[in-house]
């Protein structure tokens, strides 16, 4: 596997909801080697730093990224049109270690953290339970794509406007009470990841979490995106989300 810097055209651009952009890129170099949970560093014209965006899906020569407009950089990116080329560095980082896809597993996603789970859950089909949490019904996105993979999809909203009213981690506890689960994979806000990891580890279930950190180079050179983790010998160190992650074994993370 190798990192490449490539210019690839935007094939399709849609907005699944207000403030959310869904881009499909023709990018064989990266799409063919992208592992679930890896990310891209996308250049935004006029900005010092590339924007790290998780790969939502990779199929054949196509890459899909879904992102929320949060600041000036993502606003620039939201302005690209179909046919425009994007300058992309990737695939970056260490993704999910999915293991045997015939095992029953659970995916937990929250907010904009749900997107990389689409690529990750697909190989499991009906063996996966996918639990997605959103603030409110109008923030829900991509559920049709998740359903199309054949997974058991369950939703939660903070305000109860759709699915379970409450936290997605309530759904996790209920699902783990129901039956066997060999592994938990999670991506979302820090408190959700922390609660998910605690619930899984309490039951002795292996858990992998995808972490976020402010990032500069995105390739392990600048050491900007530090996250404190435990080493095998029990000592603490700063790992780097861009190369040691973004996916970490939850038992190594110092919350």
């Amino acid at each position, binding site marked *: 596997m190798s990192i490449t810097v490539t210019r690839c055209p935007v094939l399709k651009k849609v907005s699944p909801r207000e403030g959310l952009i869904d881009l499909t890129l023709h990018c064989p170099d990266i799409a063919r080697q992208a592992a679930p949970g890896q990310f891209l560093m996308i250049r935004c014209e006029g900005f010092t*730093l*590339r924007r790290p965006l998780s790969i939502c899906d990779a199929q054949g020569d196509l890459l899909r990224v879904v992102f929320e407009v949060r600041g000036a950089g993502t606003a620039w990116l939201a302005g690209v049109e179909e046919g425009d080329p994007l300058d992309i560095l990737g695939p970056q980082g260490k993704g999910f270690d999915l293991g045997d896809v015939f095992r029953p597993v659970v995916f937990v996603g929250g907010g904009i953290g749900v997107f990389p789970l689409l690529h990750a859950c697909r190989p499991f089909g009906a063996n996966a339970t996918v639990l997605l949490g959103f603030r409110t019904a109008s923030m829900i996105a991509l559920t049709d794509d998740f359903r199309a993979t054949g997974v058991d999809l369950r939703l939660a909203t903070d305000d109860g406007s759709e699915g379970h009213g409450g936290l997605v981690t309530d759904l996790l506890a209920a699902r783990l009470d129901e039956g066997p689960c060999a592994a938990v994979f999670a991506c979302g806000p820090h408190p959700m990841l922390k609660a998910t990891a605690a619930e899984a580890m309490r039951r002795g279930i292996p858990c992998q979490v995808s972490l976020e*950190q402010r990032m*500069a*180079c995105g390739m392990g*050179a600048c*050491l900007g995106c*530090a996250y404190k983790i435990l080493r095998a010998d029990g000592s603490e160190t700063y790992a780097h989300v861009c190369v040691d992650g973004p996916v970490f074994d939850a038992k190594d993370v110092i919350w």
Partner: protein
Amino acid sequence: MVTTPQMSVNIAGVTLANPIVTASGTFGFGREYGALFPLSELGAVTVKGLTLQERMGNAPPRVAETPSGMLNSVGLQNPGVEKFIRQELPWLKTQGTVIIANIAGSTIEDYCAMAERLSDTEVDLLELNISCPNVKQGGVAFGTTCENAAGITAAVKPYCKKPLIVKLSPNVTDIAEIAVAVVDAGADALSLINTLLGMRIDINTRRPILANNVGGLSGPAVRPIAVRMVWQVRNRVTVPIIGMGGVATWEDAVEMLLAGANAVAVGTALYADPYAPVKIKQGLRDYLERNGIADVNALSGAVQANS
């Protein structure tokens, strides 16, 4: 008839194949970018700042984007000088480029010990980092007065069997005074500028974005300051200068050379374009060719300042 321009430069007795080098802290130990292009394209690689013992670095967040630049407060996270020598240097030595080892410490004794240890290795030059704004002890404190800067240079110099570059801080009243002091104390070359101390605040949380509150500003935002400082220092010293600070294009590199630099380091520009140093080198060569300049050294200090 213009032949291919002569691109090599000499920094304190060490020949660099071309004047484009990397800035410490932006390029790791070369492996990451070495996966994208041969490091032999570069005049030199300046490695991440080394300390005597391993350092964990500062708490995150460590980086924040700014208009035309960024702040960092990495805090010299590195594996320590011995691990560098064992695990990184043997590989780097095979890459066909000059190696500059950047060293930082919290005491003068640390700097001396590292200079002595690295002098017995295959690194080509030592860069004394007395300008890191992100560590509580040492670092920039050694670089902000003439007395301290000259003192540490004079103390370290006897331990150096390799040429000694002193990297200067821009967070001072008169950088040229400090440059003169460290050259008088034995510096074989100078590099400037390190980052400018800066700050960003999240207006919603009313907290600084960096966990360290403040950090070093780099990128095109600092370039005019770097050019001005290189020019001021060049007017006072004759030793080689590695100019750095916001260089992102070949035009920027030419500007830095004209101001008085002998070599030009590229750092933050890597993050937008990992190939920036290679493109800058090619652009510089094309510029020389187009203008019938036979030797890149002819540009150094060639600015025609107004009287």
